[in-house]
């Protein structure tokens, strides 16, 4: 049977980096607390299952991600716990180490971030530390892979020797007063609830004294549990949680005094950067500048690459037109379906990838927790939390991980609200539509402004909806803002690259599976149609009579008040599967038509029903873009909302409110823009 190794530690200490090195996987590593929100398993040496857990400061969870980590450690009984410690912040990291020691389970310690510690002139006496902790301590630099072999060797040795570092489990001894109470509680447990955590009775006793919510909940559910709680209350003073924390930190101070030397007055780069990024007056303007340059960079860098791909695809198309028989079905599949439809999406790959790159850089730099710090007040006014802000920013990449990241938000009300408003943050998949059509509203030069206005509108709607949800539906206190502001780190090319690639890979998977399949499906639907002479279904009829057009005509009445054509309707309907498909649908349907000025122009020419004045087209196009921004991001997003809320009701709310707001706004824009006159 394979052995379980659980990686645990404070948030942002490099657990996932260690996990990646041990297992050869590429889990998401980033520089802010709360990146990993679910447990992830990988293999080391075939015989070990390594489990990466969300970061925790204690074993008394207050958010879902912490609960996952705590339950794994307490209930799933891993064969060995690998506690990752941050060498630059050892004192606080040792607190969790002591909580783990109390569990009296086999443990080893990995002292990570040794490179940063060295730079700061921090000296750690590793051998002495191991002696005082009573378990092996192995120094590492996880992102460079240094020390990982030593960790592996140690793990193998522990299991092959068969003596599971049991001596590490010398119980932590507290003052006589506390020890007495622990003992009395243990006796009560033995008498009245003998089966409750029987292998961890001392630990259970400590947690009962501390009034740990989870343990109290668990014991209340077991026979006679309430009796134990009542009896403990008789001699407990209620300050045990305090006293224990104090005593633990006292022992830790002692250990630190013997093993750890640091230069107290050293000013770190992070301190200096914080003076700038958290500056009283400049902090917020700098924040906006960072966001702005992110987008600016994304567009400027990716534009030439996108054009290159388009040119390449165009040339390929010309070649095929010359070389292949014109009326063969495969010519149509490749020309209309793949180059026209799928190619329209592929042209935007550089754009989407650059966006991922920029976001990865931001995440790895350590700035995100600063953004949360800068914005918490504003979020608080909206009834939300600084943490929600981080989730919102992640939405610029993709709303699905953003929805998942909400697990780190403590209060259930905040979490649900943040999940439900995230969809308004414009993800990378919607960008191609904006780029394709944005130039037809105020002219080519203003594409950037239009795109910016859409992003901005999304943020405004997110804020308004947050206010609505939080003030009307999920009333409740916002949880305290307790956030560690860790060090900035220069993102390494390797890690930012891996990170971008992880996201990019998801995108390519999506492009390869969903988008490609949908495009081929649409092509088939476009190729089959009703023959006007016979009234029967036939292959290769006029696109106007195709099944795809039929679907468009079927849904078009829904959008008739907005004056959208059946082609516009097809884009919206299939875009529900993935927003990139909107562009692909246009590319496919309009593939046969000539338009030297490009697809965008063609689309604009076909977006409205007959009778809409040319002067009103900009408004209609903008309304369309606003609808694309606000309606359900995609089915996968709904899946994520369902998974995270566990509620059909909220999933339905998520799906419908965006459509409703988008529709109303598009109507209003049409009205203002003169579409109806």
């Amino acid at each position, binding site marked *: 049977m394979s052995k379980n190794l659980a990686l645990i530690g404070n948030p942002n200490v490099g657990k996932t980096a260690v996990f990646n090195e041990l297992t050869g996987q590429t889990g998401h590593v980033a520089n802010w607390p709360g990146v990993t929100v679910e447990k992830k398993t990988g293999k080391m040496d075939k015989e070990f299952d390594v489990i990466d857990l969300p970061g925790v*400061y204690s074993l008394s969870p207050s958010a879902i991600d912490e609960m996952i980590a705590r339950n794994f450690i307490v209930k799933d009984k891993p064969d060995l716990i690998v506690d990752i410690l941050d060498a630059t*912040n050892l004192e*606080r990291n040792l607190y969790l180490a002591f909580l783990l020691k109390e569990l009296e389970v086999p443990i080893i310690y990995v002292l990570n971030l040794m490179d940063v510690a060295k730079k700061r002139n921090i000296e750690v006496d590793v051998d002495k530390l191991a002696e005082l902790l009573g378990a092996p301590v192995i120094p590492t630099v996880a992102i460079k892979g240094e020390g990982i072999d030593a960790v592996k060797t140690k793990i193998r040795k522990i299991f092959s020797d068969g003596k599971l570092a049991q001596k590490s489990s010398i119980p932590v001894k507290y003052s006589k007063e506390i020890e007495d109470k622990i003992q009395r509680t243990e006796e009560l447990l033995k008498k009245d609830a003998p089966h409750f955590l029987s292998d961890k009775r001392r630990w259970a006793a400590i947690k009962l004294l501390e*009034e740990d919510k989870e343990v109290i909940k668990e014991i209340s559910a077991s026979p006679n549990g309430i009796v134990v709680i009542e009896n403990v209350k008789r001699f407990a003073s209620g300050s045990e949680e*305090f006293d224990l924390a104090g005593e633990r930190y006292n022992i830790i101070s002692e250990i630190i005094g013997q093993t750890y030397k640091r230069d107290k007055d050293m000013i770190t780069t992070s301190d200096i950067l914080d003076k700038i990024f958290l500056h009283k007056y400049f902090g917020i303007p700098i924040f906006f500048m960072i966001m702005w340059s992110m987008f600016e960079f994304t567009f400027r860098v990716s534009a030439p690459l996108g054009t290159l791909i388009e040119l390449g695809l165009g040339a390929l198309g010309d070649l095929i037109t010359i070389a292949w028989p014109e009326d063969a079905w495969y010519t149509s599949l490749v020309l209309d379906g793949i180059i026209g439809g799928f190619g329209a999406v592929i042209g935007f790959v550089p754009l989407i990838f650059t966006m991922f790159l920029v976001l990865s850089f931001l995440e790895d730099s350590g700035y995100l927790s600063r953004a949360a710090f800068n914005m918490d007040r504003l979020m*608080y006014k909206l009834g939300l939390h600084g943490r929600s802000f981080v989730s919102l920013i992640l939405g610029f990449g993709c709303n699905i991980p953003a929805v998942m990241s909400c697990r780190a938000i403590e209060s259930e009300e905040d979490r649900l609200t943040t999940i439900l408003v995230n969809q308004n943050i414009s993800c990378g998949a919607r960008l191609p539509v904006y780029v394709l059509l944005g130039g037809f509203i105020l002219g080519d030069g203003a594409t950037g402004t239009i795109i910016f206005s859409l992003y901005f509108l999304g943020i405004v709607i997110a804020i308004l909806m947050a206010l609505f949800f939080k003030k009307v539906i999920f009333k409740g206190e916002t949880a305290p*803002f307790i956030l560690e*502001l860790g060090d900035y780190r220069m993102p390494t090319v390797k890690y930012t690259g891996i990170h971008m690639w992880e996201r990019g890979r998801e995108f390519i998977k999506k492009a390869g599976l969903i988008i490609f399949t949908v495009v081929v499906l649409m092509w088939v639907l476009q190729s089959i149609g009703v023959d006007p002479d016979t009234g029967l279904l036939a292959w290769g009829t006029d696109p106007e009579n195709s099944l795809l057009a039929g679907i468009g005509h079927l849904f078009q009445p829904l959008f008739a008040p907005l004056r959208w054509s059946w082609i516009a309707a097809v884009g919206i309907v299939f875009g529900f599967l993935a927003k990139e498909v909107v562009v692909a649908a246009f590319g496919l349907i309009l593939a046969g038509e000539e338009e030297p000025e490009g697809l965008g122009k063609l689309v604009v020419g076909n977006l409205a029903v007959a009778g809409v004045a040319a002067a009103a087209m900009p408004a209609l196009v903008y309304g369309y873009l606003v609808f694309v921004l606000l309606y359900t991001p995609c089915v996968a997003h709904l899946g994520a909302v369902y998974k995270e809320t566990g509620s059909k009701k909220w999933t339905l709310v998520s799906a419908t409110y965006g459509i409703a707001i988008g529709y109303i706004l598009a109507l209003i824009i049409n009205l203002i823009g003169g579409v109806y006159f």
Partner: protein
Amino acid sequence: MKLSELPFNTQAKIISVDKKIISRVAAMGVIPGTEVKIIRASPLGDPLELEIKNYNLSLRKQECKLIEVEKI
């Protein structure tokens, strides 16, 4: 005095922490006897950034009101 009233960049020692938040902050090192200093406030005035146990922690004023400190 309350931690929320402590002037910036003044070293102080924690005397007591309200029971309401103790389970949340004890693990972070916010316990009686620990030295603490406010480094700055967020540009919008809240939350505050503290230096405690050699790292930087951010808490809202609201929570800082529940922490008693004395200057040292």
